Protein backbone atom coordinates (compact mmCIF):
# COMPACT_ATOMS: atom_id res chain seq x y z
CA UNK A 1 0.00 0.00 0.00
CA UNK A 2 2.95 2.29 0.29
CA UNK A 3 1.76 4.43 3.23
CA UNK A 4 4.37 6.39 5.05
CA UNK A 5 3.93 5.58 8.71
CA UNK A 6 6.11 8.37 9.96
CA UNK A 7 4.01 9.53 12.89
CA UNK A 8 4.81 12.85 14.44
CA UNK A 9 4.06 12.20 18.08
CA UNK A 10 5.47 15.40 19.47
CA UNK A 11 2.39 17.34 18.48
CA UNK A 12 0.34 15.05 20.70
CA UNK A 13 2.31 16.10 23.75
CA UNK A 14 1.49 19.78 23.69
CA UNK A 15 -1.70 21.70 24.12
CA UNK A 16 -3.06 22.30 20.68
CA UNK A 17 -6.60 22.17 19.35
CA UNK A 18 -6.67 18.41 19.07
CA UNK A 19 -5.31 17.57 22.49
CA UNK A 20 -7.41 20.21 24.22
CA UNK A 21 -10.53 18.83 22.56
CA UNK A 22 -9.53 15.31 23.52
CA UNK A 23 -8.86 16.21 27.14
CA UNK A 24 -12.06 18.22 27.35
CA UNK A 25 -14.00 15.31 25.91
CA UNK A 26 -12.56 12.93 28.49
CA UNK A 27 -13.45 15.23 31.38
CA UNK A 28 -16.93 16.01 30.08
CA UNK A 29 -17.68 12.40 29.38
CA UNK A 30 -16.49 11.25 32.79
CA UNK A 31 -18.66 13.83 34.53
CA UNK A 32 -21.65 13.04 32.36
CA UNK A 33 -21.44 9.31 32.85
CA UNK A 34 -20.91 9.73 36.57
CA UNK A 35 -24.01 11.87 36.76
CA UNK A 36 -26.13 9.60 34.60
CA UNK A 37 -25.26 6.55 36.64
CA UNK A 38 -26.46 8.27 39.82
CA UNK A 39 -29.77 8.91 38.16
CA UNK A 40 -31.65 5.59 38.39
CA UNK A 41 -31.31 5.11 42.15
CA UNK A 42 -32.43 8.66 42.75
CA UNK A 43 -35.31 8.38 40.32
CA UNK A 44 -36.45 5.07 41.72
CA UNK A 45 -36.57 6.60 45.15
CA UNK A 46 -38.59 9.55 43.89
CA UNK A 47 -40.79 7.21 41.94
CA UNK A 48 -41.69 5.31 45.09
CA UNK A 49 -41.82 8.10 47.57
CA UNK A 50 -43.80 10.63 45.58
CA UNK A 51 -46.74 8.38 44.66
CA UNK A 52 -46.77 7.26 48.25
CA UNK A 53 -47.27 10.81 49.36
CA UNK A 54 -49.80 11.33 46.60
CA UNK A 55 -51.70 8.30 47.76
CA UNK A 56 -51.47 9.27 51.42
CA UNK A 57 -49.23 6.47 52.48
CA UNK A 58 -45.64 6.33 53.52
CA UNK A 59 -43.59 4.59 50.87
CA UNK A 60 -40.31 2.91 51.67
CA UNK A 61 -38.92 4.15 54.93
CA UNK A 62 -37.35 1.21 56.65
CA UNK A 63 -33.93 0.76 55.13
CA UNK A 64 -31.34 2.69 57.03
CA UNK A 65 -27.79 2.75 58.27
CA UNK A 66 -27.31 3.36 61.95
CA UNK A 67 -30.66 4.99 62.48
CA UNK A 68 -30.33 7.26 59.42
CA UNK A 69 -33.39 6.46 57.41
CA UNK A 70 -33.08 9.35 54.97
CA UNK A 71 -36.74 9.03 54.08
CA UNK A 72 -36.18 5.83 52.21
CA UNK A 73 -33.34 6.94 49.97
CA UNK A 74 -31.22 4.00 51.05
CA UNK A 75 -33.92 1.68 49.81
CA UNK A 76 -32.65 2.35 46.30
CA UNK A 77 -29.17 1.35 47.35
CA UNK A 78 -30.46 -1.84 48.87
CA UNK A 79 -32.47 -2.57 45.75
CA UNK A 80 -29.47 -2.05 43.51
CA UNK A 81 -27.36 -4.40 45.56
CA UNK A 82 -30.14 -6.97 45.60
CA UNK A 83 -30.64 -6.77 41.87
CA UNK A 84 -26.98 -7.33 41.16
CA UNK A 85 -26.63 -10.32 43.44
CA UNK A 86 -29.85 -12.02 42.46
CA UNK A 87 -29.70 -15.24 40.56
CA UNK A 88 -29.97 -14.86 36.85
CA UNK A 89 -32.31 -17.44 35.41
CA UNK A 90 -31.86 -17.81 31.68
CA UNK A 91 -34.99 -19.55 30.41
CA UNK A 92 -34.84 -22.75 28.41
CA UNK A 93 -34.62 -22.15 24.71
CA UNK A 94 -33.73 -18.51 25.03
CA UNK A 95 -31.43 -17.41 22.26
CA UNK A 96 -27.87 -17.72 23.48
CA UNK A 97 -26.64 -14.39 22.14
CA UNK A 98 -29.60 -12.06 21.80
CA UNK A 99 -30.98 -12.77 25.24
CA UNK A 100 -27.81 -11.26 26.65
CA UNK A 101 -27.43 -8.64 23.95
CA UNK A 102 -30.88 -7.06 24.10
CA UNK A 103 -30.32 -4.97 27.25
CA UNK A 104 -27.26 -3.46 25.58
CA UNK A 105 -29.42 -2.09 22.77
CA UNK A 106 -31.53 -0.32 25.37
CA UNK A 107 -28.57 1.21 27.18
CA UNK A 108 -26.21 2.63 24.61
CA UNK A 109 -28.62 4.80 22.57
CA UNK A 110 -29.60 6.69 25.69
CA UNK A 111 -25.99 7.42 26.61
CA UNK A 112 -25.11 8.43 23.08
CA UNK A 113 -27.99 10.88 22.84
CA UNK A 114 -27.15 12.28 26.28
CA UNK A 115 -23.82 13.30 24.81
CA UNK A 116 -25.37 15.43 22.08
CA UNK A 117 -27.14 17.84 24.40
CA UNK A 118 -25.56 21.22 25.14
CA UNK A 119 -25.36 21.43 28.89
CA UNK A 120 -24.11 24.96 29.08
CA UNK A 121 -22.56 27.83 27.19
CA UNK A 122 -19.08 27.49 25.75
CA UNK A 123 -16.18 27.74 28.13
CA UNK A 124 -13.19 29.83 27.17
CA UNK A 125 -10.00 28.49 28.71
CA UNK A 126 -6.65 29.95 27.67
CA UNK A 127 -8.03 30.89 24.33
CA UNK A 128 -9.57 27.54 23.51
CA UNK A 129 -13.30 27.40 23.12
CA UNK A 130 -14.77 24.35 24.78
CA UNK A 131 -18.40 23.58 24.05
CA UNK A 132 -20.29 21.93 26.85
CA UNK A 133 -21.70 19.10 24.88
CA UNK A 134 -19.74 15.91 24.69
CA UNK A 135 -20.51 15.44 21.01
CA UNK A 136 -21.14 18.38 18.76
CA UNK A 137 -22.78 17.61 15.44
CA UNK A 138 -24.15 20.05 12.98
CA UNK A 139 -26.91 17.62 12.11
CA UNK A 140 -27.92 17.68 15.77
CA UNK A 141 -31.58 16.66 15.60
CA UNK A 142 -31.11 14.02 12.96
CA UNK A 143 -28.30 12.44 14.93
CA UNK A 144 -30.52 12.26 18.00
CA UNK A 145 -33.40 10.71 16.11
CA UNK A 146 -31.16 8.27 14.30
CA UNK A 147 -29.70 7.00 17.55
CA UNK A 148 -32.96 6.85 19.46
CA UNK A 149 -34.54 4.87 16.64
CA UNK A 150 -32.03 2.14 17.46
CA UNK A 151 -33.61 1.65 20.88
CA UNK A 152 -36.45 -0.24 19.23
CA UNK A 153 -34.09 -3.16 18.68
CA UNK A 154 -33.57 -3.60 22.40
CA UNK A 155 -37.26 -4.03 22.98
CA UNK A 156 -37.84 -6.22 19.94
CA UNK A 157 -34.88 -8.51 20.59
CA UNK A 158 -35.69 -8.86 24.28
CA UNK A 159 -39.12 -10.24 23.64
CA UNK A 160 -38.08 -12.43 20.76
CA UNK A 161 -35.06 -13.93 22.50
CA UNK A 162 -37.02 -14.91 25.59
CA UNK A 163 -38.73 -17.89 23.99
CA UNK A 164 -41.97 -16.87 25.66
CA UNK A 165 -44.89 -16.05 23.43
CA UNK A 166 -46.24 -13.46 25.84
CA UNK A 167 -42.90 -11.70 25.82
CA UNK A 168 -42.92 -11.80 22.05
CA UNK A 169 -46.38 -10.31 21.90
CA UNK A 170 -45.46 -7.68 24.45
CA UNK A 171 -42.33 -6.69 22.65
CA UNK A 172 -44.07 -6.51 19.28
CA UNK A 173 -46.65 -4.19 20.73
CA UNK A 174 -44.08 -2.10 22.57
CA UNK A 175 -41.94 -1.78 19.44
CA UNK A 176 -44.95 -0.89 17.31
CA UNK A 177 -45.85 1.74 19.88
CA UNK A 178 -42.35 3.19 19.88
CA UNK A 179 -42.12 3.49 16.12
CA UNK A 180 -45.64 4.86 15.85
CA UNK A 181 -44.77 7.76 18.09
CA UNK A 182 -41.41 8.47 16.53
CA UNK A 183 -43.05 10.18 13.56
CA UNK A 184 -45.03 12.78 15.47
CA UNK A 185 -41.95 13.28 17.64
CA UNK A 186 -39.89 14.10 14.58
CA UNK A 187 -42.59 16.22 13.05
CA UNK A 188 -43.08 18.27 16.18
CA UNK A 189 -39.52 19.52 15.93
CA UNK A 190 -39.80 20.68 12.34
CA UNK A 191 -41.44 23.99 13.31
CA UNK A 192 -38.47 24.53 15.62
CA UNK A 193 -36.13 24.17 12.67
CA UNK A 194 -38.35 26.52 10.70
CA UNK A 195 -38.31 29.13 13.41
CA UNK A 196 -34.67 29.00 14.46
CA UNK A 197 -33.27 27.98 11.10
CA UNK A 198 -30.76 25.42 12.28
CA UNK A 199 -30.51 21.77 13.22
CA UNK A 200 -27.69 22.32 15.68
CA UNK A 201 -28.88 22.16 19.29
CA UNK A 202 -26.21 24.54 20.54
CA UNK A 203 -27.29 27.20 18.08
CA UNK A 204 -30.94 26.69 18.97
CA UNK A 205 -30.19 27.38 22.61
CA UNK A 206 -28.18 30.44 21.69
CA UNK A 207 -31.09 31.66 19.58
CA UNK A 208 -33.41 31.59 22.60
CA UNK A 209 -31.65 34.50 24.15
CA UNK A 210 -34.65 36.51 25.23
CA UNK A 211 -37.41 35.00 27.28
CA UNK A 212 -40.18 35.33 24.73
CA UNK A 213 -38.10 33.61 22.09
CA UNK A 214 -38.24 30.41 24.00
CA UNK A 215 -39.74 27.50 22.11
CA UNK A 216 -42.70 27.31 24.44
CA UNK A 217 -43.91 30.67 23.16
CA UNK A 218 -42.97 30.31 19.53
CA UNK A 219 -44.13 26.72 19.04
CA UNK A 220 -46.56 25.74 21.80
CA UNK A 221 -48.33 23.04 19.81
CA UNK A 222 -44.96 21.45 19.15
CA UNK A 223 -44.33 21.34 22.87
CA UNK A 224 -47.61 19.57 23.45
CA UNK A 225 -46.96 16.98 20.78
CA UNK A 226 -43.38 16.51 21.91
CA UNK A 227 -44.32 15.93 25.52
CA UNK A 228 -46.99 13.39 24.64
CA UNK A 229 -44.68 11.52 22.29
CA UNK A 230 -41.93 11.72 24.89
CA UNK A 231 -44.08 9.60 27.20
CA UNK A 232 -44.85 7.12 24.47
CA UNK A 233 -41.24 6.73 23.35
CA UNK A 234 -39.99 5.72 26.76
CA UNK A 235 -42.89 3.32 27.30
CA UNK A 236 -43.92 5.26 30.37
CA UNK A 237 -46.76 7.02 32.06
CA UNK A 238 -50.12 6.39 30.42
CA UNK A 239 -48.42 4.52 27.57
CA UNK A 240 -46.88 1.73 29.56
CA UNK A 241 -49.21 -1.04 28.50
CA UNK A 242 -46.32 -3.15 27.34
CA UNK A 243 -44.68 -3.26 30.72
CA UNK A 244 -47.55 -2.76 33.09
CA UNK A 245 -48.10 -5.19 35.90
CA UNK A 246 -50.98 -7.45 35.17
CA UNK A 247 -50.88 -6.93 31.42
CA UNK A 248 -48.90 -9.65 29.65
CA UNK A 249 -47.08 -10.04 32.95
CA UNK A 250 -44.19 -7.67 32.42
CA UNK A 251 -44.25 -7.59 28.65
CA UNK A 252 -40.98 -7.83 26.86
CA UNK A 253 -38.86 -8.07 29.99
CA UNK A 254 -40.80 -10.85 31.70
CA UNK A 255 -37.99 -13.33 31.44
CA UNK A 256 -35.33 -10.88 32.48
CA UNK A 257 -34.25 -10.72 36.06
CA UNK A 258 -31.53 -9.25 38.26
CA UNK A 259 -28.84 -7.26 36.53
CA UNK A 260 -30.36 -7.36 33.04
CA UNK A 261 -33.58 -5.97 34.41
CA UNK A 262 -31.46 -3.25 36.00
CA UNK A 263 -29.91 -2.62 32.58
CA UNK A 264 -33.34 -2.12 31.02
CA UNK A 265 -34.25 0.29 33.72
CA UNK A 266 -30.99 2.13 33.44
CA UNK A 267 -31.78 2.59 29.77
CA UNK A 268 -35.31 3.71 30.50
CA UNK A 269 -34.38 6.27 33.12
CA UNK A 270 -31.50 7.67 31.13
CA UNK A 271 -33.84 7.98 28.13
CA UNK A 272 -36.28 9.83 30.33
CA UNK A 273 -33.57 12.20 31.42
CA UNK A 274 -32.31 12.69 27.90
CA UNK A 275 -35.73 13.44 26.47
CA UNK A 276 -36.41 15.82 29.34
CA UNK A 277 -33.17 17.61 28.58
CA UNK A 278 -34.09 17.72 24.92
CA UNK A 279 -37.47 19.23 25.71
CA UNK A 280 -35.85 21.81 27.97
CA UNK A 281 -33.23 22.61 25.37
CA UNK A 282 -35.62 23.11 22.51
CA UNK A 283 -38.64 24.59 24.23
CA UNK A 284 -37.46 26.12 27.47
CA UNK A 285 -34.25 27.78 26.46
CA UNK A 286 -31.79 25.11 27.54
CA UNK A 287 -29.14 26.65 29.69
CA UNK A 288 -30.47 30.18 29.26
CA UNK A 289 -31.66 31.97 32.35
CA UNK A 290 -35.15 33.42 31.97
CA UNK A 291 -35.27 37.17 31.42
CA UNK A 292 -31.49 37.47 31.54
CA UNK A 293 -29.64 37.25 28.26
CA UNK A 294 -26.30 35.51 27.91
CA UNK A 295 -24.38 38.69 27.25
CA UNK A 296 -25.88 40.35 30.31
CA UNK A 297 -24.74 37.41 32.39
CA UNK A 298 -21.25 37.57 30.96
CA UNK A 299 -20.94 41.25 31.75
CA UNK A 300 -22.39 40.66 35.21
CA UNK A 301 -20.05 37.86 36.14
CA UNK A 302 -17.00 38.88 34.20
CA UNK A 303 -16.15 35.76 32.27
CA UNK A 304 -18.07 33.10 30.35
CA UNK A 305 -16.55 30.47 32.60
CA UNK A 306 -18.64 31.71 35.50
CA UNK A 307 -21.81 31.64 33.46
CA UNK A 308 -21.35 27.97 32.58
CA UNK A 309 -22.20 26.52 36.02
CA UNK A 310 -25.31 28.66 36.16
CA UNK A 311 -26.25 27.44 32.72
CA UNK A 312 -25.78 23.81 33.69
CA UNK A 313 -27.84 24.34 36.82
CA UNK A 314 -30.65 25.96 34.85
CA UNK A 315 -30.75 23.10 32.38
CA UNK A 316 -30.79 20.53 35.14
CA UNK A 317 -33.61 22.38 36.88
CA UNK A 318 -35.68 22.40 33.72
CA UNK A 319 -34.96 18.75 33.07
CA UNK A 320 -35.90 18.00 36.66
CA UNK A 321 -39.20 19.71 36.04
CA UNK A 322 -39.91 17.43 33.11
CA UNK A 323 -38.94 14.35 35.04
CA UNK A 324 -41.24 15.44 37.81
CA UNK A 325 -43.98 15.68 35.18
CA UNK A 326 -43.09 12.16 34.03
CA UNK A 327 -43.56 10.74 37.49
CA UNK A 328 -46.58 12.86 38.30
CA UNK A 329 -48.37 11.83 35.12
CA UNK A 330 -47.55 8.18 35.65
CA UNK A 331 -49.29 8.06 38.97
CA UNK A 332 -52.19 10.25 38.00
CA UNK A 333 -53.50 9.13 34.66
CA UNK A 334 -55.01 5.73 33.90
CA UNK A 335 -53.39 3.59 31.30
CA UNK A 336 -54.30 3.64 27.64
CA UNK A 337 -55.60 0.53 25.97
CA UNK A 338 -53.43 -0.53 23.10
CA UNK A 339 -55.84 0.33 20.32
CA UNK A 340 -56.49 3.73 21.89
CA UNK A 341 -52.77 4.24 22.01
CA UNK A 342 -52.25 3.46 18.34
CA UNK A 343 -55.25 5.53 17.38
CA UNK A 344 -53.78 8.48 19.25
CA UNK A 345 -50.43 8.08 17.58
CA UNK A 346 -51.51 7.62 13.99
CA UNK A 347 -54.82 9.37 13.65
CA UNK A 348 -54.45 12.21 16.06
CA UNK A 349 -50.81 13.10 16.62
CA UNK A 350 -49.71 12.68 13.01
CA UNK A 351 -52.32 14.98 11.44
CA UNK A 352 -51.87 17.54 14.18
CA UNK A 353 -48.11 17.43 13.74
CA UNK A 354 -48.45 17.93 10.02
CA UNK A 355 -50.97 20.73 10.43
CA UNK A 356 -48.64 22.35 12.94
CA UNK A 357 -45.85 22.36 10.36
CA UNK A 358 -48.10 23.82 7.69
CA UNK A 359 -49.49 26.57 9.88
CA UNK A 360 -46.08 27.49 11.25
CA UNK A 361 -44.65 27.64 7.75
CA UNK A 362 -47.41 29.88 6.47
CA UNK A 363 -47.27 32.19 9.47
CA UNK A 364 -43.50 32.48 9.21
CA UNK A 365 -43.69 33.06 5.48
CA UNK A 366 -46.17 35.87 5.96
CA UNK A 367 -44.06 37.41 8.68
CA UNK A 368 -40.70 37.09 7.00
CA UNK A 369 -41.14 37.14 3.27
CA UNK A 370 -42.42 40.62 2.90
Amino acid at each position, binding site marked *: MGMNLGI*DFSSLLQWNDFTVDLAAFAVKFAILVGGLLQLPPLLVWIERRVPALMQRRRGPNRVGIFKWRLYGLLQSLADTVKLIFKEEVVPDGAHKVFYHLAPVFCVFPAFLVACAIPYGPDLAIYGYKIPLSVVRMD*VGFLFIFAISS*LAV*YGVALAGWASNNKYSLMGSLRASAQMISYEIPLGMSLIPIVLIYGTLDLGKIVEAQNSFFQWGVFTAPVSLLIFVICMFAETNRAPFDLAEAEGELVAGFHTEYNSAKFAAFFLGEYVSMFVLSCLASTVFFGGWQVPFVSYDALVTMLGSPNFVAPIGILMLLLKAAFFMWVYIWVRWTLPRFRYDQLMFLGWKFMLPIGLANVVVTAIVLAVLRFK
Partner: protein
Amino acid sequence: MEALYFVPEMLFYVISGLILLSSIMVVAARNPVTSAIFLVVDLFFVAALYAQLDAHFTAAIQVLVYAGAIVVLFVFVIMILNLKPDALRGIRFSLGEALVLLITLAGFVIVGSELARTAPDLTTPGNLGSAAIEMAGGNTYVVAMRMFTAFLWPFEMASVLILLAIVACVMIAKKDKRVTKS
Protein backbone atom coordinates in the same frame (compact mmCIF):
# COMPACT_ATOMS: atom_id res chain seq x y z
CA MET B 1 -4.43 17.03 12.86
CA GLU B 2 -0.94 16.53 11.56
CA ALA B 3 0.30 13.68 13.65
CA LEU B 4 -2.25 11.10 12.55
CA TYR B 5 -2.56 11.95 8.88
CA PHE B 6 -2.52 8.36 7.73
CA VAL B 7 -5.64 7.56 9.73
CA PRO B 8 -8.27 8.53 7.12
CA GLU B 9 -6.87 6.20 4.49
CA MET B 10 -6.44 3.36 6.93
CA LEU B 11 -9.89 4.04 8.29
CA PHE B 12 -11.41 3.59 4.87
CA TYR B 13 -9.88 0.15 4.53
CA VAL B 14 -10.87 -0.81 8.05
CA ILE B 15 -14.48 0.28 7.58
CA SER B 16 -14.72 -1.38 4.18
CA GLY B 17 -13.35 -4.57 5.63
CA LEU B 18 -15.91 -4.46 8.40
CA ILE B 19 -18.69 -3.83 5.90
CA LEU B 20 -17.61 -6.83 3.84
CA LEU B 21 -17.38 -8.97 6.93
CA SER B 22 -20.83 -8.08 8.20
CA SER B 23 -22.32 -8.53 4.74
CA ILE B 24 -20.93 -12.03 4.60
CA MET B 25 -22.33 -12.70 8.05
CA VAL B 26 -25.74 -11.44 6.95
CA VAL B 27 -25.85 -14.07 4.28
CA ALA B 28 -24.14 -16.81 6.24
CA ALA B 29 -26.05 -16.60 9.49
CA ARG B 30 -28.45 -19.46 10.12
CA ASN B 31 -30.86 -17.49 12.25
CA PRO B 32 -32.86 -14.79 10.44
CA VAL B 33 -32.72 -12.42 13.41
CA THR B 34 -28.94 -12.75 13.49
CA SER B 35 -28.96 -11.84 9.82
CA ALA B 36 -31.07 -8.78 10.55
CA ILE B 37 -28.83 -7.60 13.35
CA PHE B 38 -25.73 -8.05 11.20
CA LEU B 39 -27.52 -5.99 8.58
CA VAL B 40 -27.97 -3.23 11.14
CA VAL B 41 -24.26 -3.40 11.94
CA ASP B 42 -23.49 -3.38 8.23
CA LEU B 43 -25.59 -0.29 7.58
CA PHE B 44 -24.03 1.37 10.58
CA PHE B 45 -20.61 0.89 9.03
CA VAL B 46 -21.85 2.22 5.71
CA ALA B 47 -22.99 5.29 7.60
CA ALA B 48 -19.50 5.47 9.08
CA LEU B 49 -18.15 5.43 5.53
CA TYR B 50 -20.42 8.33 4.61
CA ALA B 51 -19.24 10.17 7.70
CA GLN B 52 -15.64 9.61 6.71
CA LEU B 53 -16.46 11.23 3.38
CA ASP B 54 -17.83 14.20 5.32
CA ALA B 55 -21.38 13.47 4.23
CA HIS B 56 -22.78 13.83 7.71
CA PHE B 57 -26.36 14.33 6.66
CA THR B 58 -26.36 11.17 4.56
CA ALA B 59 -24.77 9.25 7.42
CA ALA B 60 -27.46 10.35 9.85
CA ILE B 61 -30.22 9.55 7.36
CA GLN B 62 -28.67 6.17 6.66
CA VAL B 63 -28.94 5.24 10.31
CA LEU B 64 -32.32 6.88 10.78
CA VAL B 65 -34.14 5.42 7.80
CA TYR B 66 -32.23 2.33 6.80
CA ALA B 67 -30.96 0.91 10.06
CA GLY B 68 -33.66 2.39 12.22
CA ALA B 69 -36.76 1.79 10.12
CA ILE B 70 -36.26 -0.65 7.28
CA VAL B 71 -34.45 -3.31 9.26
CA VAL B 72 -37.01 -2.81 12.03
CA LEU B 73 -39.55 -3.84 9.42
CA PHE B 74 -37.48 -6.93 8.66
CA VAL B 75 -37.30 -7.79 12.33
CA PHE B 76 -41.04 -7.32 12.70
CA VAL B 77 -41.72 -9.68 9.83
CA ILE B 78 -39.37 -12.27 11.28
CA MET B 79 -41.05 -11.97 14.65
CA ILE B 80 -44.53 -12.15 13.19
CA LEU B 81 -43.77 -15.21 11.13
CA ASN B 82 -41.70 -16.62 13.97
CA LEU B 83 -39.15 -18.05 11.58
CA LYS B 84 -37.02 -20.64 13.24
CA PRO B 85 -33.45 -21.40 12.21
CA ASP B 86 -34.34 -24.98 11.34
CA ALA B 87 -36.54 -23.78 8.55
CA LEU B 88 -33.60 -22.22 6.78
CA ARG B 89 -30.29 -23.77 6.02
CA GLY B 90 -26.89 -22.26 6.41
CA ILE B 91 -24.20 -21.93 3.80
CA ARG B 92 -23.98 -25.20 1.95
CA PHE B 93 -23.36 -24.81 -1.75
CA SER B 94 -24.31 -27.18 -4.47
CA LEU B 95 -22.05 -27.39 -7.51
CA GLY B 96 -24.20 -25.16 -9.66
CA GLU B 97 -24.41 -22.50 -6.99
CA ALA B 98 -20.65 -22.56 -6.49
CA LEU B 99 -20.15 -22.09 -10.22
CA VAL B 100 -22.55 -19.14 -10.29
CA LEU B 101 -20.75 -17.62 -7.33
CA LEU B 102 -17.37 -17.93 -9.04
CA ILE B 103 -18.67 -16.34 -12.23
CA THR B 104 -20.19 -13.48 -10.23
CA LEU B 105 -16.93 -12.89 -8.40
CA ALA B 106 -15.04 -12.92 -11.68
CA GLY B 107 -17.51 -10.40 -13.05
CA PHE B 108 -16.94 -8.14 -10.04
CA VAL B 109 -13.19 -8.32 -10.51
CA ILE B 110 -13.45 -7.45 -14.20
CA VAL B 111 -15.88 -4.57 -13.72
CA GLY B 112 -13.99 -3.31 -10.67
CA SER B 113 -10.65 -3.16 -12.41
CA GLU B 114 -12.19 -1.44 -15.39
CA LEU B 115 -13.75 1.18 -13.16
CA ALA B 116 -10.53 1.67 -11.26
CA ARG B 117 -8.70 2.21 -14.51
CA THR B 118 -11.09 4.86 -15.77
CA ALA B 119 -12.02 6.45 -12.43
CA PRO B 120 -12.01 10.28 -12.27
CA ASP B 121 -9.60 11.94 -9.91
CA LEU B 122 -11.56 12.45 -6.72
CA THR B 123 -8.64 13.45 -4.54
CA THR B 124 -8.70 17.15 -5.30
CA PRO B 125 -11.67 18.72 -3.57
CA GLY B 126 -13.57 20.82 -6.02
CA ASN B 127 -16.76 22.48 -5.04
CA LEU B 128 -17.70 19.31 -3.19
CA GLY B 129 -14.82 19.52 -0.74
CA SER B 130 -15.68 19.63 2.93
CA ALA B 131 -14.20 23.09 3.36
CA ALA B 132 -16.43 24.40 0.59
CA ILE B 133 -19.45 22.74 2.16
CA GLU B 134 -18.69 24.26 5.54
CA MET B 135 -18.50 27.68 3.96
CA ALA B 136 -21.77 27.17 2.15
CA GLY B 137 -23.58 26.51 5.41
CA GLY B 138 -23.14 22.87 6.26
CA ASN B 139 -24.12 19.53 4.87
CA THR B 140 -27.86 19.68 5.30
CA TYR B 141 -28.05 23.12 3.81
CA VAL B 142 -26.16 22.19 0.67
CA VAL B 143 -28.15 19.01 0.12
CA ALA B 144 -31.43 20.81 0.67
CA MET B 145 -30.62 23.69 -1.65
CA ARG B 146 -29.56 21.33 -4.41
CA MET B 147 -32.60 19.17 -3.96
CA PHE B 148 -35.17 21.92 -4.09
CA THR B 149 -33.64 23.75 -7.01
CA ALA B 150 -31.73 21.45 -9.32
CA PHE B 151 -33.35 18.16 -8.36
CA LEU B 152 -36.91 19.27 -7.86
CA TRP B 153 -38.52 16.78 -10.19
CA PRO B 154 -36.87 13.73 -8.62
CA PHE B 155 -38.03 15.05 -5.27
CA GLU B 156 -41.64 15.29 -6.35
CA MET B 157 -41.39 11.93 -8.07
CA ALA B 158 -40.13 10.53 -4.77
CA SER B 159 -43.38 11.58 -3.17
CA VAL B 160 -45.32 9.76 -5.88
CA LEU B 161 -43.18 6.69 -5.29
CA ILE B 162 -43.92 6.84 -1.60
CA LEU B 163 -47.62 7.12 -2.39
CA LEU B 164 -47.32 4.05 -4.59
CA ALA B 165 -45.63 2.18 -1.80
CA ILE B 166 -48.36 3.15 0.66
CA VAL B 167 -51.14 2.02 -1.63
CA ALA B 168 -49.38 -1.18 -2.62
CA CYS B 169 -48.64 -2.32 0.89
CA VAL B 170 -52.12 -1.53 2.15
CA MET B 171 -53.59 -3.47 -0.74
CA ILE B 172 -51.37 -6.44 -0.02
CA ALA B 173 -51.91 -6.50 3.69
CA LYS B 174 -55.61 -5.81 3.86
CA LYS B 175 -58.04 -8.04 2.09
CA ASP B 176 -60.69 -6.14 0.21
CA LYS B 177 -63.87 -6.32 2.26
CA ARG B 178 -66.08 -6.57 -0.79
CA VAL B 179 -64.30 -9.70 -1.96
CA THR B 180 -64.69 -11.61 1.28
CA LYS B 181 -68.30 -10.71 1.89
CA SER B 182 -69.66 -12.61 -1.05
